[in-house]
């Protein structure tokens, strides 16, 4: 760890012009990095230097920089979102690195997430999975009073543990099979635990899982790497729930 002193770092960053081009690693150095900088601010500094030199800046996704939008998606030294547990790359600070360290930065790698440019990938497969069933079928207007159905605190807390998934894709990126089970399980677990989501739970499980397979995500390895790397620390429980829901749904259909 850094003890508040400025650091010099060497970076190895994946550069790829677009989806169809081949990519390669390029070496860069950044000097005078403050330990209080966020990881993305360190990349900002690099990009400013590159632009001034007339070199193309490194493209990476980001927006909220607060760990909640799920945009940032950097594979840092072999781990999605870097070395720290429970944080996204935008919340990772340079105090987690030390002077002279070399850092390898790659995009998420998965067939279902093709690289768009440099460190940016296409995660629209996640949107299509939600489209397949990640909702409650109610239209605007006409809902009953919000307190008319009681929901136990435990159920709500469980639902919220699952629904806080930010859809970043770290679970897919870290999985050997590029499985999206944690992502899909989180949505299924969230909605199946609440009375509002219950009526459609079986149809939802079948449709979302079907879409997940169609998008080219692999099957769950049971190694639990996804839960270990999830920046929101979503637990393997949701995958268990997903399987149960799916089995029940299949039985019902038979």
């Amino acid at each position, binding site marked *: 760890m850094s003890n508040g002193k400025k650091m010099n770092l060497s970076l190895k960053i994946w550069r790829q012009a*677009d989806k169809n081009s081949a990519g390669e690693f390029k070496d860069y150095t950044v000097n005078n990095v403050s330990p*209080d*900088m966020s990881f993305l*601010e360190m990349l*900002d*500094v690099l990009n*400013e230097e590159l*632009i*001034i030199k007339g070199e*193309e*800046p490194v*493209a990476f*996704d*980001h*927006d*909220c*920089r*607060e*760990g*909640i*939008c*799920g*945009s940032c998606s950097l594979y840092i030294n072999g781990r999605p979102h870097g070395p720290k547990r*429970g944080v996204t790359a935008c*919340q990772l*600070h340079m*105090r987690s690195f030390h002077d002279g360290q070399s850092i390898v930065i790659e995009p998420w790698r998965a067939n279902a997430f093709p690289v*768009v440019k440099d460190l*940016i990938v*296409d*995660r*629209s497969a996640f*949107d299509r999975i*939600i*489209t397949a069933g*990640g*909702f*409650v*079928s*109610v*239209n*605007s*207007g006409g809902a*009953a009073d*919000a*307190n008319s159905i*009681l929901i*136990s*605190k435990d159920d*709500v*807390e469980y639902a*919220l543990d699952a*629904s*806080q998934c*930010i*859809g970043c894709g770290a679970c897919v990126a870290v999985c050997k099979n590029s499985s999206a089970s944690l992502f899909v399980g989180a949505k299924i677990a*969230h*909605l199946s635990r*609440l009375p*509002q989501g219950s009526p459609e739970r079986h149809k939802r499980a079948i449709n979302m899982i079907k879409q997940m397979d169609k998008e080219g995500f692999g099957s769950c390895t049971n190694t639990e790497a996804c839960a270990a790397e999830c920046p929101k620390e979503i637990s393997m429980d949701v995958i268990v729930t997903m399987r149960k829901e799916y089995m029940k749904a299949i039985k019902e259909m038979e």
Partner: protein
Amino acid sequence: MELNAKIPQGDLKDKWSYYKGNVKLVNPANKRKYNLIVVGTGLAGASAAASLAELGYNVKSFCFQDSPRRAHSIAAQGGINAAKNYQNDGDSVWRLFYDTIKGGDYRAREANVHRLAELSVNIIDQCVAQGVPFAREYGGLLDNRSFGGAQVSRTFYARGQTGQQLLLGAYSALMRQVGLGKVKLFPRYEMLDLVVVDGRARGIITRNLITGAVERHAADAVILATGGYGNLFYLSTNAKGSNVTASWRSYKRGALFANPCFTQIHPTCIPVKGDYQSKLTLMSESLRNDGRVWVPKRKGDTRKPMDIPENERDYYLERKYPSFGNLVPRDVASRNAKEVVDEGRGVGESGFAVYLDFADAIKRLGVDEIKMRYGNLFDMYYQITDEDPYKVPMRIYPAVHYTMGGLWVDYELMTTIPGLYALGECNFSDHGANRLGASALMQGLADGYFVIPYTIGNYLADHRPDGLDINAQEFETVEKEVNDRVGKLLSVNGSRTVDDFHRNLGQIMWEYVGMSRNEGGLKKAIKLISELRDEFWKDVKVLGRNEELNQSLEKAGRVADFLELGELVARGALNRNESCGGHFRAEYQTQENEALRDDENYCYVAAWQFKGDDQLPELHKENLKFEFVTPSQRSYK
């Protein structure tokens, strides 16, 4: 230009019912013949697109992020207000209305705000039906917390991530309509201009952010839900991509821009650390429920907070405002923080901070309870500062957070361009000169789920769908202008980066158009901004091409618009010779340093009309009439 707000007749509480009962309708079979464009997928845009699609309209939905779920609304933390009175503590639609009007320092329209308060209750019902997991009590009923500017508990929340849960609800409704084929999604698309045909908004020009392709989209009406312009100040709590381009381009096509100088500085943000700082992080206002704000009594006291005994601390909000204490509205809390810092009593390395202390709350409630209430905020604070707020008080300082100003809209949320609507933070409608906490989420969802589905029909009923062709001359012209502008940005090839200009603009804005403004400073800002703008077009360096994913180019377009907007904000502030809400003019204050309004001369909405790049904008006034409440000097003592 006569500004007609189209406020319905009748008593305040009957206006919206009257409107709904008398509005023109589009027959269900005809709805599917209309094409609508919704730009933005935050709370306002996603809820609007979903609701309109449910009614049968064909909707195209645009956002610049890679997924609609990532819109800036996702970052809202604290909660959403609703006049449910579940706590039996005296809340009502009237009280929420009154608090919001008063909180806005009597610069909002009564009829709009009352409608908002009425709809607030439906929002909670709607969200719960979608599966939004709001916090509950052990008995299974919904829980509430308090927010600034209110003496009741009416804020619904989902830990410190209410915006996320609400947006995921709206996003799921939107994606359901995508699946049903009623919404076509355009993520990673940026609207770069508005197309007006025969005086009506008929389409937009977009840039595909992956390929750079500039495209035309036609529609029967265009709805903007593109968020606020806080990033004008460079450092703000907004997401990095938040920008003013859609509103600004519409302003330049004839939509009036209202109250641009009403910007909100949030009192509780993590202080600035260094030059590299790229954004500021909010610590939700909900923390002021249990955190106590203080600074040392003595100037230049550099002892550690724990070493400063109780009687040498100044809990200045509790001292000055005994009835609201730490829960005074944001503008009041921010100004007071600045005041103690200016006196030399600020804390931390830079001296630009005050303490927000949880020691008493932890003693009273226990660590577990505090963790339950604010766990993720405490974690976030720890990540950023490397200090543990369970053990040492947080250090906070005000930062730009929200913009009350925005496109002028009437009661139907239509701008001054027929067929162009503005929803959510990008309009100016409901918060006057200061927004109360937990009211933006409420407004965005009210606009999208419950207002626009009614009001748009009133317009469409008079305009048959005519399947306007994107080859119309107007599209051609605007597309060419967009292409020229993009080409120009790429061809300057100067020596300074876009971020460098943006940071520079932010410094000017913060210094002269920030928490405290005065005539001399504002005039100086106008001059500096216009010089900076000239320099930008001579010296900006944007590498790469249009025909690719080019983040510098995206930023350059946004900053170019901020460089124009900044001047309008300063002009608006210069025009308003009074202090109200977030607009504080040092020349106009009471003896106790509170904002001094001038109702005689400034009780109006200042709506600015674009007159040309080399001309001054023209001011139009919508006089505000208070028929149901009497504006008074706000007091939170």
